[in-house]
């Protein structure tokens, strides 16, 4: 089976981001960018399936400006076979991304689409579910295990209070969570080799319609400065006298 993996280029989550002074957004210029960490887990899973003979081909797809092609090459260095880059100047919102991915799915006809459970920049957690709905496919969100059972996927989902197991007839969409696997580091030879793998660049017609308008972006409220305490006893005295934490 063919697996399509969607990867997003995001600001490295260890970077300290700055809100622009005019409140128009987050200043991402000159920030180190990486593949969204959850998308990396999705690529790793698909590549392992290929190595185990469960998948015949792994295709990585990214939507974004021309630099997004680096994110695709990162996926190819991990072992994916080829890439597709939807080259757009500004990032679509989740409904726009889902619609663009659907168009690729209709053309490529993969049996499964793997994505990260959320992107660590906009923290929306929507695209996978929206894609599944648009395609009319089942969705296994927050996956911590994916097993192929005949013509279906058995997906273990990390949900509040425990784990849920669902069976999704193929084709299906799976969004992956942290415990699924630990992504590999690409070796230098595989990074070199990836550069020779094919990447198709498409300039898609994305709908410019935005029904969700960002009015402003601001710094979060700051907490009052705290204080040092010298001992456990002093801490408890403070908690008792200055807060309602222990009442």
């Amino acid at each position, binding site marked *: 089976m063919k697996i399509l993996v969607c990867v997003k280029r995001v*600001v490295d*989550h*260890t970077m*300290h*981001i700055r*809100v622009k002074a005019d409140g128009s957004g987050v200043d991402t210029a000159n920030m180190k960018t990486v593949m969204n960490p959850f998308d990396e887990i999705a690529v790793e899973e698909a590549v392992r399936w290929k190595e185990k003979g469960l998948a015949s081909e792994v295709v990585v797809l990214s939507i974004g400006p021309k630099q997004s092609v680096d994110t695709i090459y990162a996926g190819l260095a991990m072992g994916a076979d080829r890439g597709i880059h939807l080259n757009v100047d500004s990032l679509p919102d*989740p*409904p726009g991304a*889902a619609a663009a991915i659907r168009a690729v799915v209709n053309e490529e006809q993969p049996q499964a689409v793997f994505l990260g459970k*959320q992107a*660590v*920049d*906009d*923290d*929306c*957690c*929507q695209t*996978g*579910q*929206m894609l599944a*709905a*648009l395609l009319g496919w*089942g*969705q*296994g*969100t927050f996956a911590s295990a994916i097993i192929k059972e005949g013509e279906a996927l*058995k997906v273990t*989902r990390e*949900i*509040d*209070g*425990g784990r849920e*197991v*669902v*069976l*999704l007839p193929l084709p299906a969409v799976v969004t992956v969570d*942290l*415990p699924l696997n630990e992504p590999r580091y690409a070796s230098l030879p595989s990074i070199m080799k990836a550069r020779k793998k094919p990447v198709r660049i498409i300039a898609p017609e994305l709908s410019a319609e935005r*029904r*969700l*308008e*960002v*009015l402003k*972006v*601001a*710094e*979060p409220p700051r*907490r*009052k400065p*705290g*204080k040092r305490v*010298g*001992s*456990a006893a002093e*801490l*408890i005295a403070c*908690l*008792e006298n200055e*807060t309602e*934490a222990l009442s």
Partner: protein
Amino acid sequence: MKTLMIVEQRGGEPASDTARVLCAAKQLGGPVDALVFGEGAAAAAKRVAGFPGVENVMVALGDSLKDGLAEPAAEFLSGFVENHEAVVVSASRFGKNLLPRLAALLGVPQVSDVTRILSADTFERPIYAGNAIETVKLAAFPKLLTIRATAFESAPETGGAAAVRQTTWDGTNTLSRFIGFIPSLQEGAELGSARTVVAFGRALETRENVETLIMPLVKELNAAVGATRAAVEAGLAPNDWQIGQTGRIIAPELYIGVGLSGAVQHTAGIRGAKTIVAVNIDESAPIFSMADYALVGDLHTVIPELIAAFRQKK
């Protein structure tokens, strides 16, 4: 101008954050109807009918809805929500799984993790792990919102008397099948609703240290236990103990973080805590910059001292 609140329930028990989601729903300004479905929905509906401020409770019955799966629920809801201006659900895993699917079926965008309602169409939500707050205006019908419950006040759960009505959906679901649910081994109180939370990081080093240092403190304080992503990745804690951007978002009265540096990924989940206590051997640990009380010291000596001091206080 009605709002529909979708209530997560398990075995007849509404999710513990339901009153907070209701608080957000009421702020939208219109009357609030509630919807429950899944095994035990009738019992849950009775409970929800008692929440003051709920006008009507709808129980959705039907074979394919009983397991709470998103595929049939979204399809059912896409035909059900038409009389509602807004649809809200907790930004729990349940809500995050369901609402985007409904949004796509309806062809509308969704606002995730709403932390503040400024008006019926303008909302605040955190981005970049809470390092920035976005104000968004939504021009869509209906307006679909997932609510970060910890950002809203809790409210009484009894005293109301909403009408309970039933509807049956006979649609089928061929896209997914429920196989089973494995509850997590809960140690201590429930993370999402506990008054006190003790969280630990990678500095605990071994599971034995977690058992002999952290768990007695958790027990002494009747607290819930949580962990950082680094601790989960190091195998010190199961994934569902994870607090942070991609784990649980908590807002306890008291949070005690032990042996954790305060990575943005983690602190994104504790901003709502009333009082933050941090214990770390490293004076320059970032967690100290957001802690109300900072205790610099070796956790191996500080934790037993804390346990003894809390015990003495009783």
